[in-house]
């Protein structure tokens, strides 16, 4: 506990870092980004909690409930689009392993297009609801429904911008330490959004449909 119980011989001890270990930029970056994603996960956890509290019968205040308008197959199509997008991203990252620039860019482009499909389906869904007069102002329950799903959609939107930025960076800069680090963090982001979508699909859409 105290320094006098020391086991190191002060005469021979190494006092300065002579063989400098340069620390690994990519792993530091990805760690930090992982920590950020933890907080993003907490954000969704809180939103799910709010949704849980606001999804009782009385939360809808006699207005529309998800059971009345959710179409599980439609949302399932969204699920497929998002998962294919993640898969395409995965193929792109596989190409990165082989230093295959065009393979990576093709994978990213496919991921982008599929992400856009997801988002378009979402926007179409929302405008359909809007045309039926169902908005987040309809009731507490609908507020929770809308905000949870649309916060997820917003994440997808920013992810898409990021994918475009990364395509441009890979095209102009190639595989540098910086771009590769960002490709890895973007992959973590994209995967997490897909995982969260699973929860959204099950607890908001499917659960809402059957209850």
């Amino acid at each position, binding site marked *: 506990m105290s*320094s006098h119980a020391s086991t190191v011989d002060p005469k021979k001890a190494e006092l300065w870092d002579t063989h400098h270990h340069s620390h690994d930029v990519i792993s530091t970056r990805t760690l*930090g980004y992982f920590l950020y994603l933890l907080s993003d996960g907490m954000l969704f956890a809180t939103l799910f909690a709010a949704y849980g509290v606001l999804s009782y019968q009385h939360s809808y*205040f006699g207005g529309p409930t998800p059971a009345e308008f959710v179409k599980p197959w439609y949302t399932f199509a969204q699920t497929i689009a998002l998962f294919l997008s993640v898969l395409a991203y995965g193929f792109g990252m596989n190409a990165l392993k082989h230093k295959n620039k065009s393979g990576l860019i093709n994978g990213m482009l496919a991921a982008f297009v599929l992400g856009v499909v997801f988002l378009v389906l979402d926007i179409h869904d929302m405008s359909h609801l809007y045309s039926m007069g169902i908005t987040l102002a309809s009731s507490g329950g609908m*507020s929770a429904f809308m905000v949870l799903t649309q916060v997820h959609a917003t994440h997808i939107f920013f992810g898409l911008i990021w994918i475009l930025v990364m395509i441009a960076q890979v095209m102009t800069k190639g595989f540098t330490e910086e771009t590769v680090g960002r490709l890895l963090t973007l992959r973590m982001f994209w995967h997490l959004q897909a995982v969260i979508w699973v929860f959204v699909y099950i607890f908001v859409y499917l659960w809402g449909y059957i209850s």
Partner: protein
Amino acid sequence: MLVDLPGGWSPLLGRLAWSQIPYANPILAPLFVAVVIGAIIILGLITYYGKWTYLWKEWLTTVDHKKLGVMYIIIGLVMLFRGFIDGLMIRTQQVWAVGPHSSGVFGSLHGYLTPFHFGQVYSAHGLIMILLAATPLLVGFMNIIVPIQVGARDMAYPYLNALGLWITAAAAALIMISLFVGDFAHNGWFEYAPIFEMQYSPGVGVDYWMWTLQLLALGTTLGGINILATIIKMRAPGMTWGKLPIFVWASLASNVIALTSFPALQVALALVAADRYLGAHFFTAGMGGNLMLYTNLFWIWGHPEVYFVILPAFGMMSEIFPTFSEKPLFGYMTMVLASMAIAGVSWLVWLHHFFTMGAGPYVNTAFSVATMLVGIPTGVKVFNWAFTMYRGRLTFNAAMLWAIGALFLLLVGGLTGMMLAIPAINYMVHNSVFVVAHFHSMLLVIVYAVFGSVLYWFPKVFGFKLDEFWAKTMFWLFSAGTVLVFVPMYMLGFMGMTRRLEYVFNTAWQPYLDVMELGIVVYTLSVLAFIVLLYVSVRDHAKNRVGADAWGTSRSLEWLTHSPVPFYNFAVLPHVNERDELAWRREHGIDHVRPEHYDDIHMPNNTGVAIIIGALTFVLGFALTWRIWWLCIVALLAIIVLMIIRSFRGDPGYIITGAELQRMEEEAYRREAQIADSHHIHPVSGGVVGNAMAYQRNDSSK
């Protein structure tokens, strides 16, 4: 879908109009004039002395963690002062407006503040003290000390660090501008549903409150990620987890809390925004909203937040006690475990802030027991500090006095917290000033630890010590103020005085309020003593210069490098062999061994992007508050574009060559040699009693 706004709205200015400027207010208008004159004087002086480039190059664009930390602390001290003025105003109103016969001025029936204005003052006071004074002060210290203590040259992400600072500064600016443009929230620092809904609070006050907090949450999350990554990734070779300085452990525990709890606040605020801006019904009284959902979400963050701020303070005390007891910290491992336990349990107790919600005996009991559990690790810490001092060679300098004061307050605050944790008692005193006295005792632990740390680490950062006489004067004045204000407050709480009274109906309370007013006057004197302290210390700084190991008895790595710390922290990173590395080196007489050879090092470049993004977040917050939509879009787009541009450019950093490093180091050593180290104390181990070691002073004259 968008809500109806009472009052006007124009596409260009949103809700902003001349009538929102309180130029007829007898308190705010003169204050505004004073602020403008002060600002002109400061800006004029900077221009006169031609310091703009210096300011821009050395401070505003810096990514150096020490300078960013210093700026955090400056923000914290300025906001501490602003919060103090608010406190002074609250006390003065309450001592004045007692009983039906009390007089009233400035349009107020009793006292000098109208209820609406009084509400704004106490709401701003609470928010400022917790989130804009305590938090930046602690984050500032973590910023400065953690990287040096783990033996790193900077934080893991220097640019992100600057971003966090400037977003915090933007939040501070936003709450300050609410003084002069529009109103601030008047429903308390944590607000209540549904009174913050548009229907009941149609002004911009709640919006200011909401966006200020939102910015702070963002800045703190970024800072938390940075500190965590720094601790995990940037430790010097040889520094295993078991050798981590205890302040670093405390910062780790604290930022784990920050990272996991701030998102809950962000969501709570975003949902308030959805209600107020989009007409959602999360927290409305009708339409399927749920009032208590807000309270739960807020305190799910709120309670962890109070531990987020107290844990670094515990860490600071754990650095100060050993140094001035000339002994290693007692029970290192239990200290670490206690910090982690506090961080974990802090998540399980939030409901104790509203036992009166009426969740039923089982729920209340569970939360009551969980709350009391926190007392165990806290008690462990108190005993560890006591045993650290036991049989130590105590030096009662000002830093030590502040730390001991913190220990006493922790006892008072902790025990009253235990009382509040018992639902049966809580039903009696909830929302009384007893609660106010409890949490002030607790938050004062932080203030005491921070002032202790200012004294303790000042020589490290600036190279000279602060004046002991004035520091002690300030300490005793401050402590007298604490006793005078908070002892009567506890008593009034028991007598049933509720919190936030703009008008005190019971004249029997007058004597207590008088004593509290006296206390705040004494506090004011201590503020003056602080200013004198700074002045005297800067005036005499040549006399008080110190070498690397300013106190001669400190234990951790930051005291191994020069004072003031060079911008690269360590010319050669140290190799860590022992837990208290510096103390170990000193004991074996190898603390002055220099590295033999200097290699090139790589440092990050300064950047102006962070401060510009900070300014834009301020614009965004302001535009959102006033609903100036075009400006929101412009600011948001500008932020995104800047971030993309920055990501394209990257930062190659720059290289300091070994030769240049050697030249700078030799100069620093020469400077240090000139500073006569007349009182060098060498602790050596003596008898051992139950792991509590005593030390004797080496005869330094031989």
